[in-house]
């Protein structure tokens, strides 16, 4: 297994290298450039723009810029943002916690809902509840998420006024306004209330699809011979499901969760835009609009690393949960 792991790591590094060339080329070849941010301001003259291009090193050919980028990258320097002038690593690190917080919350929601209802509808196949769950999960994968988000804002922020329409924290929040006993609760909710709607919107699709997976995976397992045997032996149904079936049914789900990691980032782009969440998704959108190549490369590389890591962990978990599966690189 050790050798397999090492091989897997080497392959991942190679993949990252290929990803970097591929995305660098794509971005540089795209029409337009970072200078577009100075458009529509007649005070910034053409001479100014020419000077700034040279100052930013944008006058050099693509391969030289890639060489410069990759050599700096290997030394751990992702370069500086054209827009803000800050190191790309700082830009990403200030946004990453928000995105991870959002992803984590929606992951918990998805798992917390999808697994139980998946099990329930598998064990109560074709029951009324199963039909409802099935319909609900199709609902979840069929509704445009930006549309769903706007509807939530309309209901919870504008009509009911119980949740903020967007944002991440309250700049003027002052815990000392609260009586001492409920102060911790206040602080908790203060952080929590901004998270609720974005996390639900982001989790919608995964909740729906994972519950479907869980249902079909559970069905597969339940109909296996060893489960039938257990039943025939008179083991109580609850025990059959919880002890014998669940563990085996979980293994494919874990792989799927690993594979779904990129879609979390994809969903974050939309969710963060709707709810003004200051995460990587929005950073990405601004960076694309301004052709901030350095930041774009940084985000792509960081997500690629996270995704590869996520798949790796999922595979490891898989082999732990299911001893029949040998770890394969």
């Amino acid at each position, binding site marked *: 297994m050790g050798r397999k792991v090492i091989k897997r790591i080497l392959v991942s590094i190679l993949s990252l290298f290929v990803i970097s060339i591929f995305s660098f080329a794509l971005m540089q070849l795209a029409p337009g450039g970072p200078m577009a941010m100075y458009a529509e301001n007649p005070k910034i003259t053409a001479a100014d723009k020419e000077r700034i291009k040279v100052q930013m090193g944008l006058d050099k050919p693509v391969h030289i810029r890639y060489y410069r980028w990759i050599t700096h990258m290997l030394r751990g320097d992702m370069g500086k943002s054209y827009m803000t002038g800050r*190191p790309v690593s700082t830009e990403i690190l200030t946004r990453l916690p928000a995105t991870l917080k959002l992803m984590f919350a929606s992951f918990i929601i998805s798992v917390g809902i999808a697994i139980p209802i998946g099990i329930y509808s598998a064990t109560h196949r074709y029951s009324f509840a199963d039909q409802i769950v099935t319909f609900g999960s199709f609902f979840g994968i069929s509704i445009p998420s930006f549309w769903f988000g706007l509807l939530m804002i309309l209901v919870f922020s504008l009509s009911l006024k119980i949740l903020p329409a967007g944002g991440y*924290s309250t700049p003027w929040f002052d815990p000392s306004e609260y009586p001492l006993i409920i102060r911790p609760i206040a602080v908790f909710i203060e952080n929590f209330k901004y998270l609720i709607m974005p996390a639900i919107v982001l989790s919608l699709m995964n909740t729906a699809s994972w519950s479907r997976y869980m249902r079909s995976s559970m069905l597969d397992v339940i109909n296996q011979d060893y489960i039938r045997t257990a039943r025939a032996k008179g083991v109580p149904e609850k025990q059959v499901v919880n002890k014998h079936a669940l563990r085996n049914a979980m293994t494919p789900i874990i792989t799927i969760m690993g594979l779904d990691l990129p879609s979390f980032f994809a969903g974050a782009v939309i969710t963060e835009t709707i709810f003004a969440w200051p995460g990587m998704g929005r950073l990405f959108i601004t960076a694309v609009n301004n052709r901030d190549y350095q930041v774009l490369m940084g985000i792509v590389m960081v997500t690629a690393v996270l995704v590869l890591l996520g798949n790796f962990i999922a595979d490891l978990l898989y082999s732990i949960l299911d001893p029949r599966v040998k770890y394969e690189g």
Partner: protein
Amino acid sequence: MKKKNVTLIIVAVLVVAFGLYYAFASKSALGPKKKDVLVWGMLTDVETLNPILSEASAETIMMNGIFSTLMKVNDKLEFEPDLLEELPEVSEDGKVYTFKLRKGVKFHDGVELTAEDVEFLYEMKMAPGNIVPSRAMWEKIDKFEIIDDYNFKITLKELDVTWLEGWAYSECMIPPKHILEKEYAENGNSLTKGGEFSRNPIGSGPYKFIEWKANEYVKLERFDDYYREGSPKIKTIVYKVVPDTNSLLAQFKSGEIDVYDGAQANQYKELLAMKEAGQKIEVHKYPAYVYMHADFNLRNPIFADKRVRQALCYAFPKQQFIDTVLDGIGTWADSCVAPNCWAFKPELKRYDYDPDKAAQLLEEAGWKLGADGVRAKDGKKLSFSITTNSGNKIREKFNEIAKQEWDAVGCDVTIQNYEASTLFGDILENVKFDIAVFGWSAGFDPDCKTLYHTEQIVDPATGATGQNYVGYSNPHLDQLLDAGLKEPDQEKRKEIYYEIQDILAEDVPYIFVYYYNEIAAVPANLANFKPNPTQATNTWNMYEWEWK
């Protein structure tokens, strides 16, 4: 059963927690009702708070609190001194300006602001290592002489009557030399947007910088040693970033932001309705210096003929466009000088909607209607494309209406929109358009040399750059544009710009569409909020604001 209980308990705990929270949070939960905080909604985050590197108007809105300028442009569009004792003295030949600084103005760290800080600003603007957005006004300086701590003299290379205006805006906010020179030296003789000062600025303005959370908010707090006695009054200002106009409106309605500056045209009615419904807000609407225009590429033989350009002007229902697409929140434009500018000429050639006249002009120009409803001349069809940056709904609608109306008079119009960075970074710069629709923001001076002068014509073939993307060349206009910069007498300047406006309205290198109208909604009890359409932005007089 067990599982059900757990779920029930969780739900109950959450309900109780939220109940308690909202019961006690009525004051701060969904909006700062406390009088010492003012929350200002921002559509974008800023990139830097260093005035040497700043370019965006969002930055000006914040930096007006942190920094001071030598002078201001007030809401009546007059200059008034800020850090100066009085407006600068100008020499006979108009090339030498003498400035006299106020005494005892302190930076937030207690150090006094002197003429050396101003000179340092000039040096930094010209330093090769600094990526300064615009050097135009600084390159015109020939000599900067310090007389003493409070007096200095600037000599221009040549006469330019528009030069002084810049001193009222954010690019001339005065940063402290004693702090910034260290950073400049330590950073290999350069200042960057990522530098310490960009994120932790110190100025001499009414508010001290406290905190900047990227993409969330910037927080300022009252500076008690501000040179104007007794001000500022409001303790804390928070600029909250809300990256979408729908969310901005939603947050303004729910009280999460107090000031919604830059509301959309179609939101005006809604804001008025809020006020009528008894909410304590004030809604300001005022004309801005930004205008939308459709640029003809005059290198295209179709548009080289003035009659075709005029025909297209007549064939576009400008007033209806303003009334419906903009809900009437826009001011008709015939030329590039704004209606609230002293040089604005009220009676210009007007292109009221008249498709018959358009058809007639096209006929005269030799474009004859073909069997397929498209005009042609010498076997070439009257077909062209119109482009703008996608995602800008107003401009997209302009294009859709233009296509419908121009097709009706016998054109064959294709809409080809590009995303902003492609349009501005490629299509315009390499003149790959037929008609391009976008906006220019202008200063309150009528000068527009960089847009229409022959010297400024863009030509990718020769590498010539400029902002005259349309390729408009008119020797007489060139003379007038040059003369306009050299005439110190405002009455005489006015005549020059009257003639310029007449020429542009007749020649129509652009279709001048409309001047933007800005909308700002503020709490009714915020006193002294005075909207300012210049680049000084609506925070220009923050020191005066107070709660009624």
